[in-house]
């Protein structure tokens, strides 16, 4: 990105003052390297977001921001319904409630190394990954509606998961306001055989070793000890979320003129929150969130079954489950006044600081775990919401490394089979249905995740707690 068009606030914050039809400024959190590496499209897209009706304070780009659809990926914006604020399908994305959950195991790296190959094979065999893979779960349309209302609670009720998990999931595992009746039969049909599946692309299940602790106090609260093993899952609402996104985006594009919305980019398609379309989208999107929460809970159950065979004494305890493609109604302080706002996070993680009332008692004094995914060969990170998170970007932080190279370029540069051999030599076992898929997701195709989380900490978006090193990756 050309920094000549930005105002440098400090070493980690850049600002675009309103021009043209912008209603608020845009704020980008990045260090010198990250800002230069950001695509110019991020500039265009964050400026466009700042033009949307009812936007509050500013449009924000997280340190991992990159070119998305309408909103940049790594984009955050909050809207006030009483000021004509909108909800945007493009501001949530196709994979509604895509997110990450991490579980502690109490196991050590030596425990995993003793069974690494057979554990990787068992996880790959029993956790459906990649296009065309299915679990044994097949739902009726009525059962699908129950999933969309109940979320992870539904999964636990059906025997997939543990009731103790629920308090460690955003919304206690069940998003209120979900309206299955606003989800089309096509979307539901697309999901009937997809519960408990990872999907593909950048989705994965990883066995990770805790490689470093930055904040002893927070790590202790989170149950993270250096050298121990955690299991992390990254996936979303699968076909259902994709279909909801596709259908509502088309309807929002077609309806924009009737709402008097002059969209600078059709992918910014949106509807007033208080309109019928806005309300229907929110109801359907919340149903999509529940689908994702149930999906990750079921995959957790499958992972626990595999671990119980290898390590009967091990208990996989959920640290936390966070979504990074959502729009949520939250209370935030704006100019000293508490306001209920619709916060869009597109490729951005919620990061509530200490004492936030939505946090479970066990985490309230320390803050919300913020889970940042790596890219097969690189580290993942656990952060915690900081007291400054709210003021910086409506309690939001980055969600991953962010791509530095297109899939197209990655497949020209790397061969999947060679990559898997190289990673195996480093002690990282990859299991994937597609060598080309592995090449597309090559660690080198992503930005430096360490720099991204360093920037998140330096800006006060979140604080670093622990660094995780991959040992086994089941790649979708």
């Amino acid at each position, binding site marked *: 990105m050309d920094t000549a068009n930005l105002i440098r606030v400090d070493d980690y914050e850049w600002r675009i003052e309103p021009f043209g039809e912008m209603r608020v400024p845009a704020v980008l959190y990045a260090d010198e390297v990250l800002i230069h590496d950001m*695509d110019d*499209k991020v500039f265009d897209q964050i400026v466009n977001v700042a033009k949307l009706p009812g936007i509050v304070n500013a449009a924000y780009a997280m340190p991992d921001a*990159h*070119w*998305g*659809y*309408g909103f940049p*990926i790594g984009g955050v914006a909050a809207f006030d319904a009483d000021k004509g604020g909108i909800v945007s399908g493009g501001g949530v*994305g*196709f*994979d509604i409630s895509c997110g990450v959950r991490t579980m502690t195991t109490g196991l050590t790296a030596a425990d995993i190394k003793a069974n690494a190959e057979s554990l990787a094979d068992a996880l790959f065999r029993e956790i459906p990954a*990649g*296009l*065309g*893979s*299915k679990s044994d779960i097949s739902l009726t349309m009525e059962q699908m509606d129950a999933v969309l209302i109940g979320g992870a609670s539904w999964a636990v009720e059906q025997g997939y998961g543990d009731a103790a998990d629920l308090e460690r999931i955003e919304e206690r595992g069940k998003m209120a306001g979900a309206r299955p009746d606003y989800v089309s039969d*096509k979307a539901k*049909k*697309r999901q009937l*055989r997809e519960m408990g599946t990872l*999907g*593909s*692309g950048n989705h994965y299940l990883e066995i990770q070793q805790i490689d470093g602790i930055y904040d002893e106090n927070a790590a202790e609260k989170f149950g993270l000890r250096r050298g121990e093993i955690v299991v992390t899952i990254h996936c979303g609402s699968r*076909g259902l979320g*994709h*279909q909801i*996104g*596709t259908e509502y*985006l*088309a309807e929002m*594009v*077609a309806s924009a003129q009737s709402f008097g919305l002059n969209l600078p*980019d*059709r*992918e910014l*398609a949106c509807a007033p929150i208080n309109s019928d379309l806005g309300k229907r989208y929110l109801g359907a999107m919340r149903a999509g969130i529940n689908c994702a929460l149930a999906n990750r809970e079921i995959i957790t159950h499958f992972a626990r079954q595999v671990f119980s065979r290898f390590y009967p004494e091990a208990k996989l305890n959920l640290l936390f489950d966070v979504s990074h493609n959502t729009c949520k109604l939250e209370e935030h302080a704006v100019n000293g006044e508490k306001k209920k706002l619709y916060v869009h996070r597109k490729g951005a993680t919620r990061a509530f600081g200490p004492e936030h009332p939505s946090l479970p008692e066990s985490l309230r004094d320390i803050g919300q775990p913020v889970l940042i995914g790596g890219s097969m060969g690189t580290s993942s990170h656990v952060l915690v919401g900081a007291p400054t998170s709210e003021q910086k970007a409506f309690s939001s932080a980055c969600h991953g490394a962010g*791509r530095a190279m*297109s*899939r*197209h*370029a990655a497949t020209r540069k790397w061969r999947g089979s060679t990559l898997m051999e190289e990673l195996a030599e480093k002690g990282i076992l990859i299991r994937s*249905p*597609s*060598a*080309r*898929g592995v090449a*597309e997701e090559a660690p080198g195709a992503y930005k430096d995740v360490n720099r991204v989380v360093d920037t998140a900490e330096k800006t006060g978006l979140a604080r670093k707690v622990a660094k995780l090193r991959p040992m086994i990756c089941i790649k979708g």
Partner: protein
Amino acid sequence: MPENIIDAPLEKLLGWKHFPHAADIGILGFGPAPHWAFEQAAIALTAVITVKPIDLAEHVLIFCSAGNMEDLFVAWLNAVTYEMAVRDMVFGDYVVRLAEGRLCGAAYGETIDQKRHQPACEVKGATYTELRVAQEENGIWTARCIVDV
């Protein structure tokens, strides 16, 4: 892409390619008429998923409509994506006919087999980003957009 529609042999008038996007993939189809560009773009969509051989034994009929050619193109790609998802199929060839904002198409393929097709990724949906359906200066029609994977 050929320089001139008049002089080029038919096989050179048809084709597809991928173009880069930061996180996802751009697909482009071209041909001497819009329906060929739509067919070729759908082949490009399949190539996002797999480049392995696909048996064309089964077919699925697809119908969609929209107010303009670009929206129709997005609707077509999303319909193809949907049929692949709910039928567990992968399509290797397509036939499209267009008339007055309506599309009638057929997608030919087989049940997806992870071992044989080794799908690299799943297409979530077609987007309006980089969306363009137009006749170029050389007379060739192109249809393009970014697909979310």
